[in-house]
């Protein structure tokens, strides 16, 4: 049993070191251009860096700032949102997003408990800790089953750890914005987008118009159409062109 626990620990440690942070020439260039006020060029280098490296909240935040200063509000809002998906605790990004939303005329919804929790407890470490506790508890229960001595203590400790770990993992599952908001997309078209009752551009079937910067939930895709849901619960169809998923496609 001790052997099994050791294997589990080693495996989790390996997971932790799966993705080392990357810092490249493009990033240095982006930062340098930003310092010298060349914001459009800086944004290009940030994008280049993000294409070649692991996505980080800070890189998206930098990209958003460069885009914002270049006057590209919608693109900046998308980058701020992506930055917040990766790190919900990044308060400056949240504040800047509110400001841009006001400029775009898009409402900033009040943060739900999931967002507040995710802002306080980082998801991945929470999952790792929860997973570790879960398996530790499971092996304690196994020990309680195997040994007659101190069976009650072992079973109690095991059950407690197991439940704690399970709760931690479930909470992370419910609050991680990368899971919760995985289907969200933003209207990037400067002219906005239209919501139709059916996947047809018949103006008689038009439900409403969505402004640039609006965030919608993509339920499914059919041809060149998205079946989407608005924050208010209204559902309809909209053309895929001009609607960009918050989580970039690989």
């Amino acid at each position: 049993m001790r052997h099994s626990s050791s294997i589990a620990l080693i495996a989790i440690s390996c997971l932790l070191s799966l993705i080392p942070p990357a810092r490249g020439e493009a990033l240095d260039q982006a930062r340098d251009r930003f310092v010298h006020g060349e914001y459009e060029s800086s944004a290009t280098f940030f994008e280049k860096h993000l294409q070649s490296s692991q996505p980080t909240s800070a890189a998206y935040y930098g990209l958003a700032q460069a885009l914002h200063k270049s006057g590209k509000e919608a693109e900046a809002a998308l980058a701020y949102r992506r930055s917040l998906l990766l790190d919900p605790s990044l308060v400056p990004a949240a504040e800047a997003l509110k400001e841009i939303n006001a400029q775009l005329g898009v409402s900033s919804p009040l943060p739900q408990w999931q967002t507040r929790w995710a802002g306080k407890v980082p998801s991945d470490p929470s999952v790792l800790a929860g997973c570790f506790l879960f398996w530790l508890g499971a092996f304690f229960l196994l020990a309680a089953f195997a040994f007659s001595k101190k069976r009650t203590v072992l079973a109690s400790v095991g059950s407690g750890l197991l439940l704690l770990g399970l709760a931690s993992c479930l909470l992370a599952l419910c609050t991680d914005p990368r899971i919760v908001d995985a289907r969200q997309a933003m209207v990037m078209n400067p002219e906005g987008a239209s919501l139709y009752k059916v996947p047809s551009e018949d103006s008689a079937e038009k439900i409403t118009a969505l402004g640039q910067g609006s965030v919608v939930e993509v339920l499914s895709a059919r041809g060149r159409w998205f079946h989407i849901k608005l924050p208010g619960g209204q559902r309809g169809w909209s053309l895929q062109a001009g609607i960009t998923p918050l989580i970039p496609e690989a």
Partner: protein
Amino acid sequence: MNSLFTIFVAALALVLSGFSLFAQEATAGLSSPATVVGRPVEMVVTVRDARSAEVPQSLNVPGLRIELLGRSTRFEMNNFKITSSLTYTYSVLSQKSGEFDIPAVEVRVGDKTLKTNPLRISVAEASAMPPPQGLAGPPSAPLPPSGAQAPRGNALPYFGEIVLSKKKAYVGEVIPAEFRYFFSSSIGGEVGDRPNLIGEGFTIQKLANVPKREQIVNGENYIVFAFQTAITPAKTGPLELPSAKLEARLQLPGSAPAGFDDFFRQFGGIAPPGMFTNMQEVAIETAPTSLEISPLPKQGRPDDFSGAIGKFKMEATVSPKKAGPGDPVTLRVVVSGQGNFEAMGPPVLVEGDEWRSYPPSEKFQSSDAINYAGDKIYEFLIVARTDQQQTPGIAFSYLDPDTGTYETLIQNPLPVQARAGQAPAKRAEASLEVNQAATPEASSTPNPPLAGQSGGASSWTSILIHPAFIMVNIAIGVIWILSLAMILIQRQAISPSSLRRKKVQRLKAALASLESCPENEFTSRAVACLLAALDTHSRPLEAAVLLAKLSVDADIKAVLLDLLSRDEESKYSNRASEVPDRETRTNILSALKKIPA
């Protein structure tokens, strides 16, 4: 007869429509929302649509003495519905200055408990209170609105007024103001969201609603709808504030419908006042007023004056107290008080050449609805150029509008241990970047965005659904299940049923080999079988005892005892043992098979 019936139906409809306007409720109001220490004000608790009620004799509010003075009952008739209002008057006497919250008063009406609205009263020191024309004072001379109709006596059914905290001010100074609209408590209706005020030469804060209150003016009870705001003059000279209109639909006293006068004349009288009302749309206006706006005095203006006008105080803290080489130190300065927080500039650092500083972040925490009072927090990030033992000093200059002189608040340097050196890139940049985000326009030199290193995830896939994570968990799960299986197998192996099963299997095998064994070994092997069946390995003496207790037929016992004696004889006698004949062997075999496992 027909016309009388029509009148009756119309009257009934009016009565029914009046029900919704006078629900049973309790409200509270102050004769003035502000006073000075030692000057009492009246608090009136009105209970509508009730004949009797129980109210507390006194209210326990720390700093205030609130005692019940008396009670009065008023009956009103609106659209044939007679309503009674109970009015309880309390005296509110303040013993010290400050802001006091008077909690909701509980009023028992029959089985029900009604609660009034909570109130707030500002109490100033006796010398600090301006004359009654100030914000706090009750209207000294209500303005007669055009077309207003008096419900009874000379009291006005409604009127509006503007209350300014001062009539003379400096350009850029924030002047708190309150628009008040008074409605006689005997009329009902609907009131618009907020008044309209359009003019030139000033800016106005967004209007903030003040909770509805009751106020006694010239002996008449009014419901007051008030809106607070702050006016900032933008030019010098006389400033005209136009009237602010608030629209309302009011149920005002009206004349009787055609035919009613004749009806009452039949009985030798006239319709009682208040019996008939008309719904009218009215615009209640405040009177235009003027202010005298002066330019900022040039004499004595400090170089670091950044436009602050009001009354302020300043506090500063530094963190961390010890900073490593090149680490930034945050100098937090809180400017609090009353004034034009939105227009003023930050404090300045004095003798700060030894420090590299950046434009501070700003955050304003208002303590009122009009952003007139509160705390403005500036955070300077400073990095020591050389090793330092104290922060730079801080200076903040403002114009005191009461005295017309400039004041400068000085904060002496605060002790800190900061070492010069190259800043660790990550922390300094992170701090600077957050700072820049708070004040995007404040910085003249853009700080490089932080990238590459930060908190948060570095993948779009949550670790929870990462394939590697799932595989590792599956592997641990398999190990766990295998471990559990091993434990179960071990436990099963030593269980009594398993042991019994094994014993039966061994016995069967031994009996099978007994049938085909050589004749000279039969006795010894049969005894071994018997001992195994009885679980008394190599203890023949015990076997005899156990055999006696065994629940089998006496014949079988005799055969088996005979077997044991044959075995003993072969072991202990000198002559060679006798080989049992075929019949005996068959009997022994049969007896051994009948021993229960």
